[in-house]
């Protein structure tokens, strides 16, 4: 979080009280704080569920006189299931990227070992899958706007776009972080001593992923 480059240059294991790197402790504290952030957003969404005075609604048809014309339920669960799968796969790629950095010094013999051991490939894959997820979100947002739901339309629109938008912003930050790591990797190669900077990025990435599982379940799946 604080200082990847410094850690890149010095990998001395000066003891800390817990034996953990400072950044690892800090990222856990940060994740704890983020839990409260998303808990507030998700609770607001749930509190406002069903309170909108006008459509479109997430799971229900809105018909006159509540809406000017009949509006179909707006959430597209099949499409979002695909994007959820993409995000889940990105976590897998993240795991492989971290393993690759941790084992960067080990000799690789077979092609599969070389593929599995390529941190550049898996960092790239993680960022790519993250970007794909963002693409899905952009598609979803635009189609909602075309169907008449914006952040200003009703309580559902405000709380939905703010919640998923906050999550999307977190994914975006994560993609930037991954791209930065990838750039470092390309420039001079990430070595096992750098594992911690990939590790904290991975913790953040998995967290963002888990939050999406919660959002997908509570917003999309539960009526």
């Amino acid at each position, binding site marked *: 979080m604080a200082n990847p480059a*410094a850690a890149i240059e010095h990998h001395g294991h000066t003891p800390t*009280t*817990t034996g953990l790197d400072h950044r690892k402790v*800090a990222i856990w504290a940060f994740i704890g*704080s983020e839990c*409260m952030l998303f808990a*507030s957003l998700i609770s607001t969404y749930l509190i406002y569920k069903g309170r909108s*005075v006008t459509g479109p609604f997430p799971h229900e048809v809105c018909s006159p006189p509540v809406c000017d014309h009949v509006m179909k339920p707006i959430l597209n669960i099949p499409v979002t299931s695909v994007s959820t799968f993409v995000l889940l796969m990105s976590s897998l790629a993240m795991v492989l990227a971290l393993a690759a950095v941790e084992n960067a010094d080990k000799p690789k013999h077979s092609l599969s070992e070389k593929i599995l051991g390529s941190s550049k490939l898996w960092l790239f894959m993680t960022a790519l899958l993250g970007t794909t997820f963002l693409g899905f979100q952009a598609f979803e947002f635009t189609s909602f706007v075309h169907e008449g739901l914006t952040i*200003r339309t009703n309580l559902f629109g405000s709380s939905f776009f*703010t919640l998923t938008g906050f999550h999307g912003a977190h994914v975006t930050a994560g993609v930037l972080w991954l791209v930065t790591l990838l750039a470092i990797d390309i420039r001079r190669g990430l070595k096992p001593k750098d594992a911690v900077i990939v590790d904290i990025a991975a913790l953040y990435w998995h967290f963002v992923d888990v939050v999406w599982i919660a959002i997908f379940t509570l917003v999309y799946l539960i009526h």
Partner: protein
Amino acid sequence: MATTAAAPPYVATREASNTGLWSWITTVDHKRIGALYLVTALIFFLIGGIEAEIIRLQLMQPNGTVVSAYTYNELFTMHGTTMIFLAVMPLSAAFFNFLVPLQIGARDVAFPRLNAFSYWVFLFGGLFINASWLLHAAPDGGWFGYAPLTTMQFNPGLNIDFWVLGIQILGVSSLAAAFNFITTIINMRAPGMQLMRMPMFTWMAFIVQFLLILAFPVITIALVFLQFDRFFGTQFYELAAGADPLLWQHLFWIFGHPEVYILILPAFGLVSEVLPTFSGKPLFGYPVMVYSGMLIAFLGFGVWAHHMFAVGMGPIADSVFGVTTLLIGIPTGVKIFNWIFTMWGGNVRFTVAAKFAIALIALFTIGGISGVMHASPPADLQQTDSYFVVAHFHYVLFGGSMMGIFAGIYYYYPKITGRLMSEKLGNWHFWLTFIGMNLTFFPMHFSGLAGMPRRIYRYDAGQGFTTYNEISSWGAYILAVATLFFVWNFVRSRKRGAVAGHNPWNAPSLEWSIPSPPPDYNYAVIPTVSSRYPLWDHKGAVVEFHEGEPIKTARELGIPMPFPTIKPLFTALFMTLMFTGLLFIHKNNWPMAYTFMFGGAAGMVASLYSWLLSPLE
């Protein structure tokens, strides 16, 4: 000697310059950042005090005409906002910064540059929110900013914009600092400094950081909703859209009640340092003090709705929140008795620091008792939003937090500056504060019970409020005089105070083993601790400084020091500019809005990258 910290091994290629404005602007030294916090927060404390004095002038007589209704509403909003976010919280942060690394035997915090960033964000946030005065558009929605009064429909001016954005900026500062201190305390303790050997102040600081990281995101989200409503037309608090204004209240108080403990626990910690020293006796019931602090913090998250007994939550919710609130009285009472019994059997030295600490016990007790009165919802319906509540929380915040902080300032001033504050001026300060504070706030219990509502810029004659308000105002003027003594003492002692020596109070904890002021590396040799009171027990490997001994530089000792850097300041500055851009939206000045928002964002990202990619040392 290797540091215990995870600081990577590095070479002291450069040494921080220790003088000049530039050295302060670029410092990453936790002690200097602590001093910056202290001085800045005291200035904001004076500003908040001036606001309070004008309020008291206005209320001194019925139908006061000193200020207009509009100005009065700005004043009480800014008084509360300033005292909470710009005075008491950063004063606590000053002590976290200065003391926590010293008390755990570390050379700095875990992330020194993040620490500098926290300070600059705090400073810019404080300046941002106070800049509203220049436009005569200071926040006027109360420090609690209840929607829908704070929405565009009911408050279309810039006032609330300044407040929303200012609190967001300050939240970034508090959160960044909290991650830093959690990491520091978990990870940078000297050998042998087990958790249950940590000084009580560090313990309370530790607990407060958890409150901060768990409570601030909630207010951040409540403010995001308000901000989006005001700037982007969302409907979170839009009545016509079916919004529920209680959403704001719940989110605000889920933050707001832990915030109360964020304000008081550091003071409890300071008092727990001061009393053992001046009693010559260890803290009574150390483990119970730790657990009660944790319990207060834990329960603090389960009582928020006691601020909302009048909103009509129904009998079940009222009962639950009433009873959980009563429960908090138990750990708090335990602390009071443990402090008294710390002194019991001791040789109590009545220094100014000790007097302020004792005053905390005496006055916080009063605030605690009236707090128990609010915990009974039917009785609270006659107290809430009346002056009785104003009396209560000033006994807690002034009688508690500020008394503890004053105790801490008198106690640690010699460690920070190397010189003692004057006890004579300090006694004037103490007695005038003690008398003025009781004269100001005790009558407010009566004006509240006599039916005086809060936040009114005027009251009519013949209502039974006049005498109490007159006394309160005289008390406030005495407090103003007391504060002048303090300011004079604080400024004067910097150069003319008696030289303190490394341990002027014969205190037991680690920070008193090193010179005053401490060298930039803190500990030439990282101590090894084997008791809670190393300088009394003479156990463990703690090298105590001997007066007159030469103090070597970090370079001579081969201790690597972090480079000074201005990058955190730039990051903070650009972030503030980014928020400033939003203000122009309501002036329909889109070129300026975009310039500030995107320019600020770009500058922030650029300085952040530059900061993160440059080596620490």
